[in-house]
């Protein structure tokens, strides 16, 4: 009961804020609604019994990614856009047709699709006993150690790439 209420509140808010993100004319406000949306998603992660993911969500998305967005918005001094030009007009009729179709199809698949997957060993009792974060960590550093290393390398490369891209090249 409580869980259902929480789901509908957080889910509804996340949809609402997501809509606000894409229909704001002021990029700063978009970013702020994005933060709100991310926090709702973090709450959903808590509902899904993964507090670690929630914390990482807040840490990375809210604490870093959106701050970066804001930072760029401010560095570039992007102001509110005029009403007539913030949406790509030529695309609108197509998008109006495609987006509902997408929702309908994926939603249909989500509800009607039959999952053939079998249940894994990580039941709720198991997670409570073992600690969900500990279980995640163990899996991450044993079975998925190679992708983990690859991803960390990717992050490093992206970091250096970003630095080098934006570096002002001497005096040309």
């Amino acid at each position: 009961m409580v869980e259902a209420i929480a789901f509908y509140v957080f889910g509804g808010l996340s949809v609402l804020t997501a809509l606000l993100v894409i229909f704001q004319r002021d990029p700063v406000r978009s970013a702020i609604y994005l933060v709100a949306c991310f926090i709702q998603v973090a709450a959903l992660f808590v509902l899904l019994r993964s507090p670690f993911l929630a914390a990482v969500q807040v840490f990375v998305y809210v604490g870093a990614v959106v701050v970066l967005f804001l930072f760029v918005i401010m560095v570039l001094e992007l102001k509110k856009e005029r009403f007539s030009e913030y949406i790509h007009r030529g695309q609108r009729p197509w998008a109006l047709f495609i987006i509902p179709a997408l929702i309908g199809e994926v939603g249909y698949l989500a509800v009607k699709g039959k999952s053939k997957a079998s249940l894994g060993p990580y039941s709720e009792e198991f997670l409570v006993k073992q600690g969900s974060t500990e279980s995640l960590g163990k899996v991450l550093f044993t079975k998925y150690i190679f992708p983990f290393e690859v991803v960390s390398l990717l992050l490093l490369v992206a970091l250096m790439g970003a630095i080098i891209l934006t570096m002002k090249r001497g005096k040309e």
Partner: protein
Amino acid sequence: MITLYHYLVLSCILFAIGVAGVLLRRNILIVLMSLELVFNSVNISLAAFSHFLQSMAGKVFVVFTITVAAAEVAVGLAILVVIFRQKKTVYVEDLSEMRH
């Protein structure tokens, strides 16, 4: 009772909103933000699968997705800044050099 399907439908709606943002907005920053929305919707469905199928793989992949998203944003925004320095615009359709 909240089931996997609730989460999947929610994720689907968020995904569609994100795609709509990518398709409709002219400001490349908002396009990137919409991409983040798409990432998040996928994360929700991954975490939901992980929870309801009692498997760890989904959560592990959420961690990876978040990392990759962070990398993507860093590089994407860096490119954006460089483009802005050169062309003084953030509108996607102004950036069509690759056509030639």
